[in-house]
């Protein structure tokens, strides 16, 4: 057991994956000597060498496109995109090449790529450094999209993603990187760990089901605490996997609670919340006492960071949605 932050947990997880399989390579801008701008790859080039931790040229499409070739050659590249808003130059390679290679070759070529993207806001960053592009990737068949919300998941999910033979967009909530230190049992058996593409119950409850992922899980746990003071018991589901989307635990929960709210940092329009609400309406129609409400950021580009607190869903906005579901 070691107490670690999400940043340290991801670093330890990458190290474990590299030790286990010498085909695992890390690629990206500044991931080597600097250890990444968030230091997630700190020390790995020193220990594994420049052949396995590649400081790449400053070219996002180049990073993903060369990783495609590496994967075809039998390697398992883990690419770091420095910030969410810089993934778009690589979008074509991800959506047109990475996502489709297995399909168009009828399974003869696999793409065991992991694309790590620090994402989301709340750190006072400048433009292009705080975006939530998850729906753009979750909408693309052929990609799998996951996100961790805490150090324990960070440590295990990154290893599971690297072991997957499918391409995984691995979203890291950057505002949680250094937020909390928790105990991580590095020696745990993989069989005792939740499978990668599943959601988990982050906090049990009986009156309402709150669904969140990544950076919003912590906020939603606070919502549940605050609601408890008012006598409401909220169950928080950590979705973890956005594609495939595992709504099993949420549906089981809603059949008990009758109410659901989805919260995410991304824009609301056509976001993950829209898909989740639609599916829950189909699967839990007779259990629902109220429509599934969505709390997202507004449908504007990410605003200047001085006003990001007004843009991002926070405890009060989510609590407000919770209250509204009880008015039906």
């Amino acid at each position, binding site marked *: 057991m070691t107490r670690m932050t999400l940043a340290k947990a991801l670093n330890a997880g990458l190290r474990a994956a590299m030790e286990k399989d010498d085909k695992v390579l890390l690629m990206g801008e500044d991931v080597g000597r600097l250890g990444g701008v968030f230091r997630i790859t700190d020390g790995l080039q020193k220990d594994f060498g420049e052949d396995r931790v590649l400081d790449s040229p400053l070219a996002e*499409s180049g990073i993903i496109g060369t990783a495609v070739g*590496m994967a075809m050659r039998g390697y398992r590249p883990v690419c770091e995109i420095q910030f969410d808003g810089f993934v778009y130059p690589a979008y074509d390679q991800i959506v047109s090449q990475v996502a489709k290679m297995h399909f168009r*070759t009828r399974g003869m070529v696999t793409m065991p790529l992991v694309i790590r993207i620090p994402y989301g806001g709340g750190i006072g960053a400048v433009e292009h450094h705080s975006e939530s592009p998850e729906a753009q990737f979750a909408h693309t068949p052929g990609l799998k999209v996951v996100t961790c919300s805490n150090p324990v998941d960070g440590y295990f999910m990154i290893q599971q993603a690297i072991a997957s033979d499918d391409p995984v967009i691995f979203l890291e909530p950057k505002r949680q990187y250094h937020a909390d230190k928790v105990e991580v049992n590095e020696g745990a058996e993989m069989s005792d760990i939740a499978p990668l593409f599943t959601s988990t119950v982050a906090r049990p409850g009986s009156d309402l089901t709150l669904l969140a992922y990544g950076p919003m899980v912590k906020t939603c746990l606070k919502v549940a605490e605050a609601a408890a003071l008012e006598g409401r018991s909220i169950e928080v589901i950590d979705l973890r996997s956005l594609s495939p989307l595992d709504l099993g635990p949420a549906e089981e929960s809603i059949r008990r609670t009758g109410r659901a709210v989805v919260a995410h940092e991304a824009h609301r329009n056509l976001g993950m919340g829209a898909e989740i609400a639609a599916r829950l309406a189909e699967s839990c129609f007779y259990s629902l006492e109220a429509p599934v409400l969505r709390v997202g950021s507004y449908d504007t580009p990410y605003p200047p960071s001085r006003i990001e607190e007004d843009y991002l869903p926070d405890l009060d906005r989510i609590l407000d949605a919770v209250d509204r579901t009880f008015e039906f």
Partner: protein
Amino acid sequence: MGLNDPVHPEPDLVQLLTPEGERVDHPDYAFAVPDGTDEAEVIRGFYRDMLLTRRIDTESTALQRHGELGLWAQLLGQEAAQIGSGRAFAPQDFVFPTYREHGVAWCRGLDPLQVLTLWRGSEHGGWDPAEYNFANYTVVIGAQTLHATGYAMGVQRDGLVGTGDPERDTAVGVYFGDGASSQGDVSEAMVFAASYNAPVVFLCQNNQWAISAGSERQSRIPLYQRASGFGFPGVRVDGNDVLAVNAVTRAALQRARDGEGPMLIEAFTYRMGAHTTTDDPTRYRTSDDVEHWKLKDPIARVRVYLSRNGLAAPEWFADVDEEADELGHRLREGCKALPDPDPVGMFDHVYAEQTPELARQRADFVAYRDSFAEVVA
């Protein structure tokens, strides 16, 4: 110089066989055949490859006109650029094509019928790249140059460069066109290749046209000169001269296998046909231009050379023509007989590990389809 003036006159061409069928020398490159092989036989082989490739092209164009193919990207005029380079690869080398490399596919041993599946819409071109060391066609322009570079970086990591063992040392070749040279991915590929000294040879077939835009719209300098800006050598070769293309490609691939890094070859050629069967080149180019290039036909010059020097008898040419007719017949019949894929299969290869949601959709689809079968029964 006006914006629409050609910037690509034809100096600096490596040429070893003139359009009139005369062998000429070049100070840096000579046509050589592998030890133990007969030169005339190799050149006859090139002629046969080019003629059969041209037949694949004309038959496929006809099949498209008859509605058997949804689209076809013609290679007419580019046979030497493709066969000359395609025959330069060692078995262990790996090749990344665009969507027009039917001649290179031929050299790698692919059945042309397999190539037709993409254009017929029965597959996305699902041959196994590892079986032929030939990647699938890439339609997005220039994307494959990065894949090739990454693959070459993998070859490098596998320790298969510069060992001195000709059976092991491996190079990667990647094809693209003059239009693709404008794409960011191609520039990024060249940056990565140079930066990591990757064993990759960039094979640009400059066929003068990116659909309707001439190559002067892509580059204000001859394309091969771009290489020096990235830090590796570039060379322009007469793309209608199969001997020169072969010699230059062999040299570049050997250089890459020896660990000396990337190289750019610009095969200066001409797309005699349309971009694809949906294109109408008469809207953007003159017949004078096409007539001018007809005189440089890549197949005719080899035929003249072989005939004039007594290296192939008229009967031999007749045999190749007959072989082309048989191939054409096989393509016509084979194309129409290509089976449509089972629609259920579309659910099966989206992921290596199937997702529960797709498994549900698959089951729903099967049940829906079967409901019609019951009605019919």
